[in-house]
């Protein structure tokens, strides 16, 4: 049976909460296939020290090392037994077939890495955009993959379970420039957003929570420039931020915690500073101007009042 060890660094536990909500496969289905060696929130009897010793003594083969939370060497900020989280990762990094970083903290450092009093906080292989994490930029696990990064604050459980299952069945996965599985992160929340008709015709929402209007121009929506399949793999199977009338806040990207004014679109002379991925500003302005001039009657009405 393949084995999985889950460690936590500086974390709010959000990705574990997410894991508990996994469906198809459910958490108990996953751990009926995979031996869960230890999880800080789920294991009662297992002793982490003993497990680590057995892994180091090759009594236990470690297939999946999962890390949740940001990394620090400073035990005043994070101490597990007598170890820091970085001690544990360093001990196990060459033993695991795969290392998967779950959540933006383990990947990029995220919110903990913004803390000024402790500057050594980082992700496993990245610190924000730079490859300056705990492990060297060319680090690879026994399987030949670098740390496989699943970003998000938190992750969607299916992003993790799909990747885990693919690796479990020895499927190859391709990674993007932040070592995120492409199959998950090649999509944008913009793909599948129910508000796309409003985006096309530049009909903007002015308030949160309404069914109508695009959230991009006024309310800071990052859907067109964030990598995440939030409108393809829905949350709790039923919805997403943008479907509910809340802008995407770009929580799968490295710059998530350092951006400002999450609910306001930064504009210069009325033109968004950041524009949808893949489009030149010139093309964006042209197509927006044409769409605004031509108008679509349907999107100017409340949905209930349309034919």
């Amino acid at each position: 049976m393949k084995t999985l060890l889950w460690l936590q660094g500086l974390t709010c536990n959000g990705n574990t909460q997410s894991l508990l909500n996994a469906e198809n496969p459910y958490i108990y289905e996953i751990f009926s296939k995979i031996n869960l060696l230890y999880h800080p929130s789920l294991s009662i009897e297992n002793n982490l020290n003993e497990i680590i010793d057995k892994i180091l003594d090759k009594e236990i083969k470690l297939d999946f090392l999962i890390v949740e939370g940001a990394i620090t060497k400073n035990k005043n900020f994070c101490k597990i037994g007598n170890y820091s989280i970085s001690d544990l990762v360093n001990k196990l990094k060459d033993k695991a077939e795969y290392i998967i970083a779950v959540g933006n903290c383990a990947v990029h450092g995220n919110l903990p890495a913004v803390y000024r009093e402790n500057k050594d906080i980082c992700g496993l292989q990245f610190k924000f955009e730079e490859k300056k994490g705990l492990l060297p930029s060319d680090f690879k696990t026994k399987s030949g993959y670098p740390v496989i990064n699943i970003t998000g604050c938190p992750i969607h459980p299916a992003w993790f379970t799909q990747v885990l299952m693919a690796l479990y069945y020895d499927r190859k996965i391709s990674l993007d420039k932040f070592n995120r599985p492409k199959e998950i992160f090649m999509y944008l929340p913009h793909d599948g957003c129910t508000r796309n008709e409003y985006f096309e015709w530049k009909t903007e929402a002015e308030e949160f929570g309404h069914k109508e209007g695009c959230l991009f121009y006024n309310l800071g929506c990052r859907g067109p420039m964030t990598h995440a399949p939030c409108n393809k793999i829905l949350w709790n199977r039923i919805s997403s931020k943008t479907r509910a009338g809340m802008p995407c806040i770009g929580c799968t990207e490295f710059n998530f915690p350092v951006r400002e004014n999450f609910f306001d679109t930064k504009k210069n002379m009325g033109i968004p500073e950041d524009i949808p991925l893949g489009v030149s500003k010139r093309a964006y302005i042209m197509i927006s101007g044409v769409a605004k001039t031509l108008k679509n009657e349907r999107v100017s009405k409340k949905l209930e009042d349309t034919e």
Partner: protein
Amino acid sequence: MPKAIQKEKKKLEIVKVACKLFAQQGYYNTTIPDIAKELGMSVGNLYNYFKSKEELAKYIMQYSSSLLGEEIKKINEMNISTKEKISLLVRRFIKIAEENPELIDYFLRVFLSNREVFSGGCEGFLCVQEVVTEIMLFLEEGVRKGDLRNQDLFTAFVTVMGPLGGLVFLKGENMLMKTLIEYADELAENIWRALKAG
């Protein structure tokens, strides 16, 4: 000369003449036979190039917009300061106005004055998109670089285009004492001072 290029060249000739007649006599007082006569071509042949007077009117606008738009695009792509860009923009606009006075006349006397002609497919942004887009790009970059004060697009837009159109209008009315280009520096300074940050 390949046929397609020949046709484009002829279209341009028609645009220049039609533009002049529309601006001099007014849109409604100018007929397709008038334009054909001025060009020395048959009415039937003219219809090979433009299916109607309205289509010709709209094409003139699109043509002018892309001519000016291309010039502003060149300025936008230069690695110079925002202030220098304003100065170049004013000079290029004046140059086009001097070389093609009929285009500016047409804009002021036909396009702005006969909106009903342009309502079907040439309204708003549609026939002037190149110019508007390039001006918008210029303004956006100016704010991003911290050179220009952030404000509503339209107030900034008319602050750039209004003075240029106004000056050329006065020239058309023979009101100016000097040549257009002699006003360029002062006008550029005015636009810069109106838009600059701080």
